[in-house]
């Protein structure tokens, strides 16, 4: 496995970073860095952390070149250098409140509950801005527990970017991936089609029935994409060899919700290096954050309409010949 940290990798320009990673040979991880500076989305750190844990779990080796860039302290405080077995030194930590949530591995429900409780004070956001953040982290990590069977659990981290007044979140696993998960109940054979279904409300890998199972409605990713859409932010979903990216909705256009991810302004990139598991990245612009309850009104409208349509598809009519 090989990973090069470029000087910039955010959701808007992450494509070249994804194309550059090598994920074969799970036992050896080689890491190189931009020499000068790096500004990275948390999802990139989560991916690197996940590969490092995997290499360690398989008793493999991690080779990291010496890090010269000024971003060294940042990567250290996020917990990445330790995961890469790189030498760290005790730096004078700045007050962390309002800045970041370091890389955290979450294996179970109790850990998730504690993580969410501790996370919000660190981000120093008022309740109306904290609600969607809590929501996103809870639903994404629970997806890992319920669908992924990931040997490393879920890896999460988040960062508040003061200049753009946004919180960026990454959640990554090394489990089954979306195609395998959706294939349990649906006839699909490509990552692209599986991702499309996973983002469609009412579709879950646990059943082909509309309305889901007792524990899962197949709504989680649709809700999260909707939160990003209404706030005109990026949302990224990468699994297997395919990435779906919800692109920003310009301020000049209405931010409408659609049940099909194909109706949103988006890009699909196929034939990427194979990622075993699922990668999710999202940005939440705090200054544009629409009140969570008004967002729920919009979701309710779209969700209900879509379920009704699906119900019609399944409704049987007598056929007269």
């Amino acid at each position, binding site marked *: 496995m090989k990973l090069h940290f470029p000087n910039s990798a955010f959701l808007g320009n992450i494509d070249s970073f994804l194309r550059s990673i090598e994920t074969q040979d799970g036992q050896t991880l080689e890491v190189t860095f931009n020499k000068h500076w790096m500004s990275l989305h948390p999802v990139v750190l989560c991916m690197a952390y996940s590969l490092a844990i995997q290499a360690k779990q398989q008793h493999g080796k991690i080779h990291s070149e010496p890090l010269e860039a000024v971003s060294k302290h940042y990567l250290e405080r996020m917990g990445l250098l330790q995961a890469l077995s790189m030498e760290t030194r005790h730096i004078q930590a700045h007050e962390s409140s309002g800045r970041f949530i370091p890389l955290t591995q979450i294996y179970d*429900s109790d850990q*998730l*509950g504690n993580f*969410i*409780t501790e996370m919000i004070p660190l981000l120093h956001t008022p*309740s109306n801005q904290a*609600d969607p953040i*809590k*929501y996103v982290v*809870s*639903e994404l990590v*629970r997806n890992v527990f319920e669908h992924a069977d990931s040997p490393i659990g879920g890896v999460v981290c988040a960062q508040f970017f003061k200049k753009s007044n946004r919180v960026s979140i990454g959640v990554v696993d090394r489990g089954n991936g979306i195609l395998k998960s959706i294939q349990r109940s649906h006839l699909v054979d490509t990552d692209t089609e599986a991702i499309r279904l996973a983002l469609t409300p*009412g579709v879950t890998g646990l059943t082909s*029935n*509309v*309305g*889901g199972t*007792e*524990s*899962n*409605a197949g*709504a*989680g990713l649709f*809700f999260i994409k909707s939160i990003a859409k209404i706030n005109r932010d990026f949302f990224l979903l990468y699994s297997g060899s395919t990435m779906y990216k919800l692109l920003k909705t310009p301020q000049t256009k209405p931010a409408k919700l659609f049940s099909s991810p194909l109706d949103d302004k988006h890009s699909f990139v196929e034939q990427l290096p194979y990622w075993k598991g699922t990668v999710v990245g999202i940005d939440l612009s705090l200054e544009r954050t629409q009140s*969570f*309850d008004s967002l*729920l*009104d919009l*979701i*309710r409208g779209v*969700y*209900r309409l879509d*379920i*009704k349509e699906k*119900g019609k598809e399944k409704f049987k009519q007598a056929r007269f010949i």
Partner: protein
Amino acid sequence: MKHAIKVFPRTGKFAENKDAAREIRLNDILPALEEGKEVILDFQGVDSTTQSFIHALISDVIRNKGIQILDHIFFKNCNTVVQKIIKIVVDYMQDVT
């Protein structure tokens, strides 16, 4: 006869733990309904929740007992967010049952 169930002590301020939802459903809601009682789900102290939590709490009750069971379930002390998420789940469960 009414059976009140306080959600907050089982979930905290952010009701997102689906295991807790399942326990409330299996150990509290369903037995009370089986005994012919009305159920009051009291969300006092709960600031927010997720669709997944509410789905795990009530969808199977609606699916198995029919939508009329909502005449026997009351949601108390819900703030706007909690109310709206409950409405979303009740909506789509009506459409699929």
